[in-house]
């Protein structure tokens, strides 16, 4: 790429800055006309800032290498825009259009400026399209990254939300389970339950599975493991909230829950738990 074409692009960007900005904003507004999720003034500010940053970047470095330090501020700004747009609910293509919609106005100016120089026109157009494509990819990547971080955070929150261990009474804990039980979740549930048993010194833990939509052999095995681990630590478990269909499924699958106390509702389980601890309290008083 010759020095002439390298200098043509910054020159065009500088000469036609105001015109480019107007055309570019018109292009962008056409894309968003259906759902104007962004105000024109905000868009104008973003576009103007981006254009001036881009002009500075092309002047101080080669336009084909957008990873160079000269483009640092351009990349940062694109990253910010993509992140804020992904939060505002823009689609990835709408976000990328921020950069791509600049092509038409820019190419028109390049043609106008270099109409007598065929080689220069082709080279400059190629340099511009290469640069804009790479910048467009940067927006998509940033968009993707911010979406991924949102998903990761939500998964983490879901995991924590779904496993509360509630203290119902002195020495009685309740664990209302909601959602499908897979191995990863069961591990978290088991650990948090056992940890709470140690902290509170609870004798009885009620595992309520009202919110568990289906029970298969794997789920049943996870439940039995949790109950067994709690028993090893010296706490009894009661499983409650078994719906009729689930009771049928458990029997059809041949899962043996005979070693676990099961109750239909949380209320029944709580009553049973009070009886069990009350029994022990009475014995304690009689001896003292």
């Amino acid at each position, binding site marked *: 790429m010759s020095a002439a074409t390298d200098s043509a692009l910054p020159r065009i960007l500088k000469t036609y800055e105001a015109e480019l900005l107007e055309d570019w904003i018109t292009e962008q507004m056409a894309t968003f006309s259906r759902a104007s999720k962004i105000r024109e003034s905000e868009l104008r500010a973003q576009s103007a800032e981006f254009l001036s940053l881009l002009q500075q970047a092309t002047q101080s470095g080669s336009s084909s290498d957008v990873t160079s330090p000269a483009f640092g501020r351009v990349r940062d700004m694109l990253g910010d825009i993509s992140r804020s747009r992904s939060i505002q609910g823009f689609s990835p293509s709408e976000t990328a259009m921020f950069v791509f919609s600049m092509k038409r106005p820019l190419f028109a100016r390049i043609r106008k400026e270099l109409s007598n120089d065929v080689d220069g026109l082709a080279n400059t157009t190629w340099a511009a399209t290469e640069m804009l494509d790479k910048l467009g990819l940067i927006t998509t990547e940033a968009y993707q990254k911010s979406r991924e971080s949102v998903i990761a955070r939500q998964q983490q929150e879901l995991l924590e939300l779904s496993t509360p261990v509630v203290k119902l009474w002195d020495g009685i804990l309740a664990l209302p389970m909601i959602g499908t039980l897979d191995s990863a979740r069961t591990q978290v549930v*088991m*650990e948090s339950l*056992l*940890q709470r*048993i*140690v902290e509170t*010194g*609870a*004798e009885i833990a009620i595992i309520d599975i009202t919110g568990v939509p289906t029970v298969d052999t794997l789920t049943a*095995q996870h439940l*039995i*493991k949790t*109950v*067994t*681990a*709690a*028993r*090893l*630590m*010296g*706490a009894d478990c009661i499983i409650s909230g078994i719906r009729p269909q689930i009771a049928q499924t458990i029997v059809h699958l041949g899962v*043996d829950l005979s*070693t676990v106390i099961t109750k239909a509702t949380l209320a029944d389980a709580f009553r049973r738990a009070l009886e069990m601890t009350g029994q*022990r309290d009475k*014995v*304690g008083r009689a*001896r003292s």
Partner: protein
Amino acid sequence: MDRIPILKLRDLLLVTIQVDMHDRLAMQLQDELTARISETSARGVLIDISSLDIVDSFIGRMIANIAAMARVLDAQTVVVGMQPAVAITLVELGLTLPGVRTALNVDRGMALLELSSDQTAAPRERDANVSD
């Protein structure tokens, strides 16, 4: 060489494991404990494993064996203070310690033993034959 102390409390024996259990130590404990049970004709054995944070299948089996041996010698065994990580490990290893009684701490374990020695006619057995 480490030794695990075996303390006599009235008609109970209290074993507190405060060092890392290795295989030799577990074998030694098994020998000494059975000897002490027959010597003192203890009615109950409390094994406190609250400071034990690592178990393997061998130690898990030793705990089950010690409990079974004590039962043969007519002493109820209660394992107390198992850490969550240890409980999870044992369950994952498939060692559910059937027939071994458990309690959260020494206090509760003591109450459990006294309760069962009160009802000598029919000691309350916590059924634990979990098959998974």
